């Protein structure tokens, strides 16, 4: 039963109307803003997902066939095998990456080893690259012509081993950052108490360290699992004959044009994603409770053996991360790996191998720029309305719920849903299809949740009475928002813009179904180049993306430093 079905007593509804009416521009602006953003999320997320669901119970001609498609899917041995493959890869990658990331994060937070800042910076490198990059690098290292092929003892890199190594590289920063947070939030007093009771270090680790970080570890594991099972770039490049759910969707839709079956696989992929999303939300809530306690920060004391061991580990991990990136960089500059190692820039002449070579890069820049600018405006307004809006509590709660959902939807599924929804000629929004705009919208929706939560956190730290004060001084809320909230939130705004930009530059999964020849993106070009065997060019394009991301990140750093200096008079905490 919807709210509209509940009979409203006459007096109450007229009071509500009077209040809205008396509120004037402000009340209408608030109502309009919340409604517009809800409608946008419904149109660009809920309805496409519904179209996907509908497609899965229809045949090619659009007739309703019930669960026939699902029956067909589960009857196919090859397709069902992919489920097992996907789960195996995801679980193994989860265990490996969490273990490595935990040790790495432990080194960063609980030891006195040197170069912590350096290690931390190195560990975030993979974020700047598309997931295709580690896969390409691994082929150079361990592929048929790989220099280190011997290390695999006859096993092939094309398959589960390659996928897992590349995935560990790709998801490492995400997992590591969660682990660092989890390990940073421990109360030093617990360690002092343990020490006072003369507890052995191993016991301290299992009774204090691990329980304190457990929510973070679960959260990291869930993130690792989801990222791995939903990623498309890595298995596409290095998977060989080893099929996983993500590549199945692509094959069904792009290869065989079997849209209904694509929809079915999409729904199957949605299940683990939603499942881990639910676990993560649950864990996050508990984590917050753990954080709110007034704790004394932990300062590690020097311990030679421990510090040295972890330093060695972190160096090895850094070698791995830099090695993968360096391999791609190196390969992009040599004439013909591994036979002619002379330096060349020829591979950067993308137009020679792909008519949309360089233009796809500029498309990416444009798309990422629009995504960052438009995205941050919408996300800021949305978060502001949720957090600071003074009326329409039910509408605001509904919007908040919608804003959290995109996190549960894998990029591939979202992209496919867009195809089903927007490609239908009857849809008035179908003019959108094939434009850069749809790529921008899709990318904003895809990365909405994390940005929304970041913004919400920043806004929550602002005094909740500013709106009341401004109302009492008869200043409309939007003026105060521009004069006060925006300046205070600039660090978060800049963070979100960088996050959106870098992700828009590197994403493949959401946009792979949506680009047209005119709107092809750089990351897609990497995929295509690799597909046709132009591996050096693919590596070169991936490096262009990395270079762009690094530039943006440096600009972001400079901007933040500038902000901090300019606002040092009132900004007590740095962003």
């Amino acid at each position, binding site marked *: 039963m919807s709210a509209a079905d509940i009979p409203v007593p006459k007096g109450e509804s007229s009071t509500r109307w009077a*209040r809205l009416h*008396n509120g*004037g521009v402000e009340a209408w602006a608030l109502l309009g803003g919340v409604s517009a953003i809800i409608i946008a999320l419904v149109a660009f997320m809920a309805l496409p997902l519904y179209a996907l669901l509908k497609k899965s119970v229809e045949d090619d001609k659009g007739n309703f066939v019930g669960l026939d498609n699902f029956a067909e899917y589960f009857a196919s041995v090859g397709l069902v095998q992919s489920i097992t493959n996907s789960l195996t890869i995801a679980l193994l990658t989860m265990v490996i990456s969490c273990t490595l990331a935990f040790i790495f994060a432990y080194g960063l937070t609980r030891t006195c080893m040197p170069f912590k800042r350096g290690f931390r910076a190195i560990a975030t490198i993979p974020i700047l690259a598309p997931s295709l990059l580690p896969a390409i690098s691994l082929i150079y290292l361990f592929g048929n012509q790989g220099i280190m092929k011997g290390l695999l003892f006859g096993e092939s890199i094309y398959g589960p081993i390659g996928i897992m190594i590349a995935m560990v590289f790709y998801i490492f920063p995400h997992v590591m950052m969660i682990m660092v947070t989890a390990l940073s939030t421990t109360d030093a007093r617990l360690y002092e108490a343990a020490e006072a009771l003369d507890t052995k270090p191993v016991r301290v680790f299992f009774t204090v360290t691990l329980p304190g970080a457990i929510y973070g570890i679960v959260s990291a594991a869930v993130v690792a699992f989801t990222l791995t099972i939903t990623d498309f770039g890595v298995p596409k490049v290095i998977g060989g004959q080893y099929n996983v759910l993500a590549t199945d969707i692509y094959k069904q839709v792009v290869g065989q044009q079997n849209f209904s079956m694509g929809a079915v696989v999409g729904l199957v992929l949605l299940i683990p994603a939603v499942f881990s999303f639910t676990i993560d939300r649950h864990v996050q809530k508990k984590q917050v409770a753990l954080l709110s306690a007034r704790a004394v920060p932990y300062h590690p004391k020097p311990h030679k053996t421990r510090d040295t061991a972890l330093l060695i580990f972190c160096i090895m991990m850094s070698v791995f991360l830099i090695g993968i990136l360096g391999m791609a960089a190196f390969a992009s500059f040599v004439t013909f790996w591994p036979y002619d190692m002379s330096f060349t820039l020829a591979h950067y002449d993308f137009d020679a191998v792909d008519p949309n070579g360089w233009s796809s890069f500029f498309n990416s820049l444009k798309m990422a720029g629009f995504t960052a600018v438009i995205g941050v405006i919408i996300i800021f307004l949305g978060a502001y309305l949720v957090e600071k809006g003074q009326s329409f509590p039910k509408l605001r709660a509904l919007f908040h719920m919608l804003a959290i959902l995109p996190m549960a939807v894998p990029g591939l599924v979202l992209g496919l849903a867009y195809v089903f929804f927007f490609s239908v000629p009857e849809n008035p929004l179908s003019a959108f299809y094939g434009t850069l705009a749809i790529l921008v919208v899709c990318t904003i929706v895809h990365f909405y949740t994390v940005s929304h939560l970041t913004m919400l956190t920043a806004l929550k730290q602002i005094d909740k009475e500013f709106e009341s*004060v401004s*109302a*009492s001084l008869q200043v409309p809320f939007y*003026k105060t928002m521009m004069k*006060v909230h925006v300046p205070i939130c600039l660090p978060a705004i800049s963070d979100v813009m960088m996050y959106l930009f870098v992700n828009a530059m590197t994403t493949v999964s959401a946009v792979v179904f949506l680009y047209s020849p005119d709107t092809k993106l750089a990351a897609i070009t990497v995929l295509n180049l690799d597909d046709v065997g132009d591996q050096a060019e693919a590596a070169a394009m991936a490096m262009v993306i990395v270079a762009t991301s690094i530039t943006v990140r440096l600009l972001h750093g400079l901007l933040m430093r500038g902000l901090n200096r300019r606002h040092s008079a009132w*900004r007590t905490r740095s962003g």
Partner: protein
Amino acid sequence: MARKPKTKAKTKGSEQRAFLEIRDVSKMFGDFTALQDVTLDIYDGELICFLGPSGCGKTTLLRAIAGLDYQTTGRIYQLERDISDVPPANRDFGIVFQSYALFPNLTVEKNIAYGLVNRKMDRAKVKARVEELLELVGLEGSDDKYPAALSGGQQQRVALARALATSPGMLLLDEPLSALDAKVREHLRHEMKELQRTLGITTIMVTHDQEEALSMADRIVVMSDGRIEQVGTPMEIYRNPTSAYVADFIGAMNFLHGKVVRKGHVKVGKMDIAVNGGTDQFKTGDEVVVCIRPEDVAVRDLAQVKTNRYAMAIRDVEFLGSFCRATLDVGGKTGEELIADFSINLMRDFKLVRGAKLNIALPKDRLQVFSSNGKGTPE
């Protein structure tokens, strides 16, 4: 609607309506009733305090008056104008919050001028008004500082200046002093009262601090569980609480549990206490509590006193600086005690130490009797 202008606040004749009239205001948050049928008149120029423990509805009532959270039912009139459904921007008030809510990225000057600038007032006038206000709150020369560079007390003054800048008809203060150190608080209490008196602005202050309410308010509204318990001047509230709840909430109070033995007499332990008329509503055998303030326990000049004279032993003495708080043994099986505040002088004159015996009297006119199952009666 019967109004009782029995307070000393300016009422300007019985025909004129109050500055602010609150009529049957209720507020629900889901199933929770935060305010229940609150009816209250607030007079022009008075400082009225909403006093009560957290969760009693005092802030909810203030926010309803401001329009920040609308009441669920009931009406509010300001100078006879129905403002019940009017948004805060179209009401006429200035407000100061416990957190001050100063804009951190704006200087003191810009904070104070915030409401003025929006009214398209010309620059020189704004500047002059800001200077005037800074002088009023004693912060001359702080124009260019950011809030972070000010102490808590100074921030509070800036918030006050900002609220007064647009010359509102009413000033609302939501726990304005709670975030300050005890010393600063006492000082500002006095200053704010002075300022309010000088400006003659109708002021509503919400506080959980009874000392603050007693020292600053013209009238106090004691609230509990979303209802008004009692309205009156600080002296009335302190001297003649109308319920055990108010008696307990304001100041220290002895609650002696006993039974009505006959009209005008209550038996507490072995004591037979004669009380003024207050027992009319009780039958013989009813369980009641007899209340007396610790400072009302009489020790000097007992010679002429005939009623309510008792001999008691001092069980314990607590030294509290300017006076001592003695715990007296009432006797009887219940182990009931009586708290009495004695001046240092009296302690010396009567050589009062732990274990000593003394005669005390419970002056009849200082006793109050409430039903013992009444709300708010202490355990």
